[in-house]
């Protein structure tokens, strides 16, 4: 039993080590590798926040929950479990890229990802990369990007984990996954589901959420095989969501939404002379069906297939200079009741460079040029640098040009789609400071983003809404993250994490704050552990956010607290159980006007390892 724990600790350690180990990956394959290793290697001057397992598990219902409590991202959520779109550094949902193992998975139709369709439990790690990532991750990585990564290892691993969850509003969830290695093989298989009646009270309104039922199912397979001079990997996931959409305080919910996605990525890494090469092929499939009346069969839908082929070669000179060249071809074919059948081809050439000039100074330059697509092909760049002033203090600086291409809905929607649209462009700068004194870590970042040609649907003559490249915005703000770990004795420890952000996001024409961007947001978690027992309190403050473009109406600020406790059996440390009480003070709150969030509720869970 103990050995298994050692393995887990070892794997976790190696994940961390490979993420921060700078330079050995060419000589030896590290024991645990990220499928998207570029994320760490070419983002030295960017802010990367990795969410640990224990943080994720505290808010495991959906990726929305996980990120709401642990980052400064604001989620515009139409009631619990409903459509949820992020605002990262004051940008909109289509300007936040979600990246799965290095591939941008934002919807072909909407350009965004609904964060309630993603289970946070399904990945080896979740990393938030703040700032522009257009060069590496393509369209939409403007405010920042969320990375869902799988890892693999050829160390001996034999773990199987099962989790069961039960909670208020008839919520049932479960997940099971197993990771096995033998010889040159690595295999990870998992399933995850949640289903909920979601019939919570609207606090103080004498109403109930009567039409918010949801089911989510996910399955994944990750496989890796060591070859003579390299590694072959396969990452695969399937997800299914079936949701009734909640009404608002003024309307009864009636509509429903079903979506299915599959994602597959095959990669072959080979060492050829001094080059480390990687060939990859990926297929993404998405399908949605929208039912205006959940009781009727009538629906409108769409489906899209995305094929990606890429080749990259990397060289590492004198343990100092890392160069990576990549060519990527993407073909998208989409068909929908409202957009007809259309396709898009893109060829992108990317050059990434990172140079460690000295122990203290590291800088990088990244370039991307696209060809073939239907727009004025953008040339994107980013430059970043990190300077470690001392053991306790480091400075980080980055600047980039990013873009977002029009979505298929923007281009082809019937009626209104505008085929003359051009990509949105944005420039940004960030200055960050990292402090670390013992177990106290802090990060303070200030950023500035200027965007133009933003696509906005506006009413034209005759009442027809059409998207045009019209608005200009300017976002700036600061973000502070604080982490502290204190071990009093062998038995007692305290873990503290908090973040705060101030966001000013202005429409330059109206000179008003953008809607659904709160000026202030703060969240914190404090956990106290004693032997096998731990207890935590989690708090979230969300400032007032405007809901109209003239800032005449808003959703109120709110503060929500959750508490939780868990216990691991001393005589069998493979079994852990516990509970959480969410919205302890039963406050009314909403993230979208007139769309209440849940009343006080309880969840219990049981996790065990086999």
């Amino acid at each position, binding site marked *: 039993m103990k050995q298994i724990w050692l393995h887990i600790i070892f794997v976790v350690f190696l994940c961390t080590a490979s993420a921060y180990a700078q330079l050995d990956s060419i000589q030896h394959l590290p024991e645990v590798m990220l499928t998207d290793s570029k994320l760490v290697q070419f983002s030295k001057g960017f802010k990367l926040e990795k969410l640990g397992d224990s943080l994720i598990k505290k808010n495991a219902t959906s990726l929305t929950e996980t990120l709401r409590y642990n980052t400064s991202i604001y989620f515009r959520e*139409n009631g619990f479990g409903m459509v949820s779109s992020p605002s990262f550094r004051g940008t909109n949902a289509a300007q936040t890229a979600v990246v799965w193992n290095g591939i941008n998975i934002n919807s072909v139709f909407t350009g965004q990802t609904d964060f309630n369709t993603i289970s946070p439990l399904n990945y080896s790690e979740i990393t938030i990369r703040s700032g522009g990532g257009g060069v590496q991750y393509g369209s939409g990585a403007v405010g920042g990007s969320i990375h869902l990564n799988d890892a693999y290892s050829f160390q001996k691993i034999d773990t199987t984990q099962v989790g069961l969850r039960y909670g208020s509003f008839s919520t049932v969830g479960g997940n099971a996954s197993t990771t096995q290695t033998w010889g040159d093989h690595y295999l990870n298989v998992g399933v995850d589901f949640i289903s909920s009646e979601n019939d919570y009270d609207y606090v103080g309104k004498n109403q109930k959420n009567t039409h918010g039922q949801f089911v989510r199912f996910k399955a994944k397979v990750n496989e890796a095989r060591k070859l003579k001079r390299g590694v072959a990997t396969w990452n695969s996931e399937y997800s299914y969501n079936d949701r009734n959409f909640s009404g*608002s*305080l*003024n*309307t*009864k919910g009636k509509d429903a939404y079903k979506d299915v996605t599959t994602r597959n990525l095959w990669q072959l890494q080979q060492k050829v002379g001094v080059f480390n090469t990687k060939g990859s092929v990926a297929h993404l499939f998405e399908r949605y069906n929208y039912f*205006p*009346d959940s009781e*009727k069969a*009538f629906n409108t839908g769409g489906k899209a297939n995305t094929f990606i082929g890429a080749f990259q070669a990397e060289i590492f000179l004198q343990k100092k200079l890392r160069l990576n060249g990549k060519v990527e071809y993407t073909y998208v074919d989409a068909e929908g009741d409202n957009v007809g059948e259309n396709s898009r081809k893109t060829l992108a050439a990317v050059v990434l460079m990172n140079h460690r000039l000295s122990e203290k100074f590291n800088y990088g330059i990244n370039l991307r040029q696209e060809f073939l697509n239907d727009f004025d092909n953008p040339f994107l760049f980013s430059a970043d640098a990190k300077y470690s002033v001392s053991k306790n203090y480091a400075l980080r600086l980055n600047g980039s040009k990013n873009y977002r291409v029009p979505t298929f809905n923007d281009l082809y929607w*019937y*009626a*209104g789609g505008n085929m003359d649209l051009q990509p949105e462009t944005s420039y940004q700068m960030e200055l960050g400071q990292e402090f670390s004194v013992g177990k106290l870590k802090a990060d303070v970042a200030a950023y500035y983003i200027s965007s133009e040609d933003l696509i906005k649907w*506006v*009413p034209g*003559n*005759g*009442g*027809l809404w059409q998207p045009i490249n019209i608005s200009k915005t300017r976002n700036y703000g600061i973000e502070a993250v604080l982490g*502290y770990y*204190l071990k*009093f004795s062998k038995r*007692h420890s*305290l873990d*503290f994490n*908090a973040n*705060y952000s101030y966001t000013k996001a202005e429409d330059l024409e109206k000179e008003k704050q953008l*809607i659904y961007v709160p000026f202030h947001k*703060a*969240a*914190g*978690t*404090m956990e*106290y552990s004693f032997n096998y027992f731990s207890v935590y*309190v989690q*708090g*979230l*403050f969300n400032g007032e956010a405007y*809901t*109209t*473009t*003239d800032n*005449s*109406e808003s959703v*109120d*600020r*709110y*503060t929500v*607290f959750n508490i939780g406790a868990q216990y691991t059996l001393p005589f069998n440390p493979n079994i852990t159980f516990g509970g959480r009480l969410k919205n302890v003070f039963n406050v009314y709150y909403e993230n*979208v*006007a*007139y*769309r209440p969030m849940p009343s006080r509720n309880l969840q219990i869970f049981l996790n065990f390892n086999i």
Partner: protein
Amino acid sequence: MKTMKRIIFMTLTVLLFVSCSSDDDNQPEYIPAAFEKGILITNEGPFNNGSGNITYISEDYSTVVQNIFKNVNGSNLGNIVQSMGFQDNIAYIVVSNSQKIEIANRYTFQRIDSVTTGLVNPRYFVSVGGNKGYVSNWGDPNDNTDDYLAVLDLRTNTVSATIPVAFGPERMVVANNKIYVAHQGAYGQNNLISVISGTTVESTIPVGDVPNSMVVSGNTLYVLCGGNPSYTGSETAGSLVKIDLATGQVSQTFSFGTTQHPTSLTMDGAKLFYNLDGKVYKVDTASISLPGADIINGNFYTLQAKDGKLYAADAKDYASRGSLIIYDLSTNQQIQEFETGIVPGGIYFNE
């Protein structure tokens, strides 16, 4: 002891990070004794997630009150305040997405009752003969065969009968105890006027595509048809149709250009006004020739002419407060502008 202090310090830090209260609700605004002698504007409200409301502007322009229904009754009207109709002292406020009609005194806006059953995407209300109201209903907007008029018994405020009608019933006018229903066509297009008498469809009169507004003058019904928009793939010209109410027949049709799609017909005296391509046009009913004279620039969500003035609602970007602009029709100059609620869509008058 030292550890204890640290714990307390950190607990406080967490609390500080996240504490704040939120009990400052909207302050009620000044309520005049009554909303007599003035303009009432129904504001649809933001499309997805909000409540519409009603703005009052006094006849002498000295008093403007936003959100009068909520101020008086403490509750929101609901989502998409589509329109309002009247019978004597009573206002019937049609709230389409909330599937209901709120009933209030038109001068005090004290809530009297509401109709919450028997309505499916209700659009407009007219009253006939004192005891009966008619409400046009889309039914399921994706089903073109379930559209109907609900007949409201105004004594009990319940739906007493339903009359199945052609697809997409919208605005209605009453003349000689008959109801003329324009079938604009909901999310699609239609080209009919239904004539209702009692609870039966007496006849249907084909007009131009997308009849979007009507006015009655004497024995003539003027119907403004927008025509099919270009995105339908079968674009048709807008038209102005004259119907003789005595015969129930189309007496004359005037056509616009193929790509011209007029909206918001209104009438003052013998003059018709409507909106087309960012301009308000004036047409003399005595000698109709289209498009008439352009008198005012602007793209308005709705128009209402009365006593030598034109009241024009500007919905701006449909996501912020709109405005009501008042023009003097003798000079065609703007004389007033008032802020309204979000998406002002209906203009009414209290004497």
